[in-house]
């Protein structure tokens, strides 16, 4: 991790308690590891994307970075400060520098508050209410391209895209350096997705923001992220620069995800990597390479030996038999 990284996460673990005393006594695990040893860094002004399917631990990871979910081990350094172990009451200034956006555009806005109150809230929380709140609200509305009369609307009167803009405005209200965005385009129609992504890109450029984007939508990643990581069962299976990963995925899971994206072209010949079986339970992680139960390329060793984390090209991957290393062509290469 470079020292000038805005955020660097090292070997982060997040546990959830499951079951009670009885199941512990019955020998069942008392914890699941939603995030199991993850490391990455985000440099200033750059965007990092976390990709994975449901249950991969990407949202948990994002919440751990923001301190909403206590981490059980590892390190999170933000602007040079270690965040793990920061007492509860010292989080406030940190959160001013690092804001978060949540999945549900409407649901992440307090339903009984007007847009005005919602946008003023960051200032009130951080004791900045002496500022001219109305001016700030108007500034923010203008910033995200909403007319000023929206200040008096309530969340349920907003469309998904409008609500998302309000969410973005709140996130940038206090000039943070890092925005964590959990599925910023979820629930939005494609025509609106573009608006939101454009807005985020704009703001990043204008305000010099860094972003951590969590998504399952690979197309979004390609449009917005500089670096990306693919998560499976709480671990990174592949992490690196975005474009090379799209063109030459090395981990079979990454390749499968990429190939699973139907493209809007009826003439496209699909050459899919089909993933058999279901995602294993976190309570019962597979041995060896945790992907071996679904990996079409798995061999004997995969079931027993945990693959090391290696650099292949510019990407760090966890696989015994990475793809695209020699002359093997991408299985699913888009154009």
């Amino acid at each position, binding site marked *: 991790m470079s020292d000038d990284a805005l955020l660097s996460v090292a070997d982060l673990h997040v546990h959830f308690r499951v079951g009670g005393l009885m199941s512990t006594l019955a020998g069942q695990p008392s914890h699941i590891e939603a995030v199991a040893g993850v490391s990455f860094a985000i440099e200033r002004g750059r965007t990092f994307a976390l990709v994975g399917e449901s249950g991969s631990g990407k949202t948990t990871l994002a*919440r751990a970075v923001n301190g*909403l979910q206590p981490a059980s081990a590892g390190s999170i350094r933000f602007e040079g400060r270690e965040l793990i172990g920061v007492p509860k009451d010292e989080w*406030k200034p940190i*959160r001013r520098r690092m804001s*978060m*956006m949540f999945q549900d555009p409407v649901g992440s806005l*307090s*339903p009984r508050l007007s847009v005005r109150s919602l946008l003023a809230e960051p200032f009130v*929380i951080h004791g900045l209410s002496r500022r001219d709140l109305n001016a700030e609200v108007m500034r923010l509305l203008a910033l995200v391209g909403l007319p000023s009369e929206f200040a008096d609307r309530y969340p349920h009167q907003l469309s998904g895209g409008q609500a998302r803009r309000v969410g973005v405005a*709140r996130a940038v209200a206090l000039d943070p350096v890092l925005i964590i965005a959990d599925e910023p385009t979820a629930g939005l129609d494609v025509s609106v997705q573009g608006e939101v992504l454009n807005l985020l890109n704009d703001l990043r450029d204008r305000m010099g923001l860094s972003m951590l984007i969590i998504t399952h939508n690979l197309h979004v990643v390609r449009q917005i992220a500089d670096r990306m990581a693919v998560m499976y069962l709480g671990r990174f299976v592949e992490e690196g620069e975005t474009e090379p990963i799209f063109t030459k995925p090395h981990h079979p899971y990454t390749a499968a995800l990429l190939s699973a994206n139907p493209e809007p072209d009826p003439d496209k010949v699909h050459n899919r990597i089909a993933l058999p079986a279901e995602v294993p339970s976190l309570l019962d992680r597979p041995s060896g390479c945790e992907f071996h139960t679904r990996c079409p390329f798995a061999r004997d060793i995969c079931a027993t030996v945990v693959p090391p984390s290696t650099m292949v090209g510019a990407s760090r991957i966890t696989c015994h038999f990475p793809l695209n290393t020699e002359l093997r062509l991408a299985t699913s290469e888009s154009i």
Partner: protein
Amino acid sequence: MLRLAKIWRIVRRIVREPLGALGLGLVVLVVLSALFADVLASYPPTKLSPADRFAPASFQHLLGTDHIGRDLFSRVLYGGRIALSIALGATGASLVIGIMLGLIAGYGPRWLDNILLLVFDALKSFPTVILALTLVTITGPSLMSVVLVVVLVSVPGYARIIRTQTLVLKSAEHVMAARSMGAGSARILTVHILPNVIGPILILASMDIPVVVAIEAGLSFLGMGVRPPTPSWGSILNDGFANIRDSYWIVVAGGLPIILTTLGFTFLGETLRDLFDPRLKGRV
């Protein structure tokens, strides 16, 4: 001004439903007659007149008189004050306590939640009447005792509902969002949770008002209600039961306002619920 217009709009929506109109009408009737009891009543509610006892309904005594010749109509009107003040006082107190405890249980640490739940469950596992009897035996019958009983009986229910909703909201995205902005627990509870849980509970509470009236009546029936000669509907009923064989009108005078108030608040509460919180339909 704006508020008045808003209230007027709500009233219009209520009145559009036949049952809502009936409910609102009954509630308004009960409230007005309690407020203007001194104007409407032709006799002081506690004035004895043994010579006139057991008079059936007449123009002099619209609802007749009781066993010591008190005018039942006057007692019913003044009884409305008692019933409403107990109902509002006790329900209000239960709401405040229940909401506070519910928020604490739902948002506070797990151990506190567990302890509170245990206390709620323990309180709930006593049959109400037995709890009431024991309490009233301790404190002696009085208006306060009735209020205390009601509070003890209803707090666990409110607190549990608030707790459940708080638990749900605790992990709701708008609350997470507020936390991620650095909002403290106090702000989250008051700005982001309370306004979203209070609506349903207020409606439920309005539907509980008749229950309170019934508890008061029941305690009075067992001779443990408010102190005489306070004219409470329950004590009128109690007097009536003692003379039910020959003077049915006393029970009618005591029972009718209870039934009307109950129906009024229930219909009104239901209409409000259907209008504002259809999610609540699943609970009675």
